[in-house]
Every structure is written in structure tokens, then in C-alpha cells.
């Protein structure tokens, strides 16, 4: 990858704003699923783990990378599955009650 340091810094700064803004309207009901979903998302470190393991050399790097792949996979897979299980509970609700949960403004479409 050839991004400049300042390019990466810009991406970081903008992501901070997106991260703050995007969840600023969350209802307390969803605190736990949101935390769990976010938890799954940082499992993207699996991509980094794969690259380090797959392009590195030497025993130490291979061992560290292999461990990282295992741990990161647990993070990703477990994270999404557990979040989905939690959210499954909400699905039983009918249209009416679902509408009541929605914030009134139109701005909540993902």
C-alpha cells in the first residue's frame, strides 16, 4: 500500500467523526447489540493477520501471525453470530410496535 502518512491521518480523522456521528442517535435498547456489532467489526484485524502471516517469513512471524489469525477469526465469527442472535429477539415484533420504536425523524435510514 502506498498511501502517504498524511493521507492515512486524514482517513483517521474523518473516521473519528463518522464513528461519533453515526451512532449518536442510538436508543438505549440497542446499546448491547451495537457494542457487540462494533466488536465484530474490529475483527477486520483478521485481514491484517492474514497478510502478516502470508507475506512474512521466519518462524517468529509465522507463529505470531498464525495465532493472530486464530484469535481474529474468533473475534469476527463469534462477534457477528452473537450479535445476530441478540437481534433475532427483536424480529418478533409486529409492524405497529416496530414503528413505535423508530425515532420520529426520517434520518435513521442506514
Amino acid at each position: 500500500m502506498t498511501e502517504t502518512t498524511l493521507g492515512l491521518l486524514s482517513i483517521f480523522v474523518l473516521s473519528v467523526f463518522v464513528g461519533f456521528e453515526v451512532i449518536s442517535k442510538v436508543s438505549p435498547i440497542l446499546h448491547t447489540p451495537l457494542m457487540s456489532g462494533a466488536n465484530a467489526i474490529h475483527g477486520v484485524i483478521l485481514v491484517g493477520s492474514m497478510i502478516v502471516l502470508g507475506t512474512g517469513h521466519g518462524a517468529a512471524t509465522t507463529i505470531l501471525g498464525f495465532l493472530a489469525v486464530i484469535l481474529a477469526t474468533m473475534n469476527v465469527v463469534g462477534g457477528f453470530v452473537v450479535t445476530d442472535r441478540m437481534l433475532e429477539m427483536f424480529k418478533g415484533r409486529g409492524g405497529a410496535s416496530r414503528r413505535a420504536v423508530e425515532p420520529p425523524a426520517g434520518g435513521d435510514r442506514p
Partner: protein
Amino acid sequence: MTRMETLELIYLLCAVCFIVALKGLSSPKWARQGNLIGAAGMLVAIATTFAWPGLHKIWLIVIGIVIGTAVAVPAARMVKMTAIPQMVAAFNGVGGGAAALVSLADFNLSHRSAGIGTSAAVLFSVLIGGVSFTGSAVTFAKLQELMTGRPVVLPRQRLLNIVLAVAALVFVIWGLAAGSMVAAVLLCLAALVFGVLFVLPVGGADVPVVISLLNAFTGLAVAASGAVLRMPLLIIAGTLVGASGTLLTQLMATAMGRPLTNILFGAITAKPTTAVAEGATDRSVRTGTVDDVAILLAYARRVVVVPGYGLAVAQAQHTVHELAQLLEQRGVEVSYGIHPVAGRMPGHMNVLLAEANVPYEQLNEMDEVNGRMGQTDVVLVVGANDVVNPAARDQPGSPIYGMPIIDADHAQQIVFMKRSMRPGFAGIDNALLYDPKTTMLFGDAKDTLSKLVTAVKTA
């Protein structure tokens, strides 16, 4: 477009999926779709990575992924609803560990040539990822009751903390100045110890807030690993989680009515509290029968059900809904008073009651029920304890002092369903159990509720 550019473009689309996922997750209507979009983005990102130029050891990678999946899927599928917080903690911890390992592994190759910026990112990722790893392990142990849920302060913990901090500082300077792999490994070890020391003094009731904080930590560690590998995807995703996790931690602490610093460092800086409510056990308790309570409920005008952790343990959500429907058919006005931190995770009660198809309109937030508590005839406390403990209002020395509570004591009558006089999560006595207005119905919540249903039918 080069192959690398194609990969980067796909990664950018995956990053967009993650943003959309978070946005979905913060709206009740789109939460589930949001999670699935996130999962789809992740799948694409992982699959794409197999096309990375010069990627070797494909089989080792596949084996790693298979092992990880084989461990995680059953764990995530089997876990009981009540144990979800510790599950999240565990998955978060391994993520932090992976971030630290990735940075270490990359540093192992590049440390001689790494610039100071890269070294700094490596050290940050190792430090934060390490803290998140052992910190999450301790929260897991606390919630899974492998150890006490009470705050644990080691002897001389302050001194230990200072020594560790100085050591970490030395390793950081060393690592920055010399790009030294040894320094990075030592820093990792220090971080692992520090993670333990960081979470031990946190009281069990505050643990979910700490999980959220460690979640944000892992996000930042992943972002730092992304800076090491110069991968925008990791930076975006990690930072997203870091930022939103920080905000979420703040929101949760607010819901518990306690400043974050208090949650994290309260036990270390606290003076030994005088045992305020000791010796209270010789006070008298009124025990009721199911039939008494059935009549009380059947002829009430307004009943508020306050569910708590015990409802989840007993899996009594369907039974309580049955009782509520029965009472409503008799013309009783029934609503649920949901405390934001009832249960073991924020939203725990909402999730459970939604599972039992309780209409959303009946789920009232704390402030709503408190406003009408004076006109309430009976408060039915089902497996809750701390969230109705008046000590949070009255006793400045109490560990839960300052937490907003459901003012059950302002109602005409209070009925507690629990199995014993044992305290709740915070481990403190509840004076409301001894209140003259209170009736105790001992036993498992589900059993008692089924009996109540039968009794109300004939009342």
C-alpha cells in the same frame, strides 16, 4: 488499474459496509440488516485478501480460520442470553490480542528499517491491544463468576501501577529510539499485566461499561495496526469502533448515573467505607402467599412490573407476559418499568421481553414509571434488586450511590419475587426488602409466576 488498486477499491467498499452496519445497528428497525451488511462486508474483505499479491502459506491461513471458527461458532450459538456480556468480552479480548500480535509480527520483520511513526503505531497497538486482551479476560472471569464480582484492590496496587507505568514508558522510549523488537515484547508483557490491574478494581456492576471501553480500545489497537500495515480498511474500521465505542461507553455510564472516572478508579481512591447497612439482617420480613398476592394484583388498578436479572435467569419472560395479559383482561392497567441497567447488559430486559412479544408500548423507561409511581397500587419486582434499592438515593457511602433507580418505594405496595434474601449484583443489602409495605414471595421467578397465573385465574 493495478491489482493492488482493485483490492484497495474493494476494501473501500467493505469499509462503507461497516459504516452502514453501524448506522443500521443504531436504529431498531435496521439493526439486524445492519449486522448482516457488516458481516457481508467482512466476508468480502476476507475473501479478497486471498488475492493479495505474493500471499503465501494459504493453507496455514485456512487452518487458522477453521480453528477460530470451530471455537467461536459453538460458543456464540450455545451461550445463554444471560451470559452474552461475557461472550462479547471474550470476543473483544481476542481481537485486541490479534491486533497486538499483528503489530508485533510486522515489527519483527521491519523493526530495523521502521520509521519513528511506524514504531509509534506498533507500540501503541501492542500496548492497547495487550490491555484489552487481559482486561477482557478479567471481565469475563468476573461475569462468569470464576472470581468475585466485587472490586479487588491488590495490596500496594498504586505503587504497582506506578512501577508499571514507568516501565512501560521506558520500553516505549527504547522502542521508539532503537526500533527494538525486545522493547516491543517487553511492552506487550507490561500491557498484559496492566490490563489485569486495570479491571480488577472495577465493581461487577460496572463491568459492562468497562467491556464497552475495552471494545473501543481494541478498535484503536486495530486502527494502529492498520497504520503499521498502511491499510485504510483497518484504519477506518478500527477508528469507527474506537470512536463509537468511546461515545457508547459515555452513554452507558450516563445511564448508570456514574461518572466514568468513578467507575474505573473509584475502588482505588475510595476510603474504606463504613458498613452502613450492617446488622440490618435482624429486621423482620413479611412473607406472603401466592394467593394473597394474586388477590392484591387482581383488584389493583395500576400495576408496574419491574423485571431484573432474576427474570432472565429463570427465563420467566413468557410467564410474566401471560400474567400481565390476564390482569389486563380483568381491567388492571399493567406496564413494565425498564431500568436501563436492569439485568447484565443495557437493553437486556428489552431484548427478553421483546422475545416474549410484550408490546413495545407497555415497556416504559425509568422516568416514565417514576412519574406515575404515586398512583401505582402494586409494584411487582421480578428478580430485580439493585435497580430498586433506595440506598442509591439515600446512602452516600453505598457503592451504587448516585445511580438513578426505579422508585418502587413510592408505590402503595411492593411485591418481591426472589429466591432468598441474598443481595443482587452490587452485593449490598436492600432496605426495601424490610419495608412494611413489602411482601416477599420466595422461590424461582418462573415457578412463582406460574402459580400466580393459576391463582389469578380463580381470584
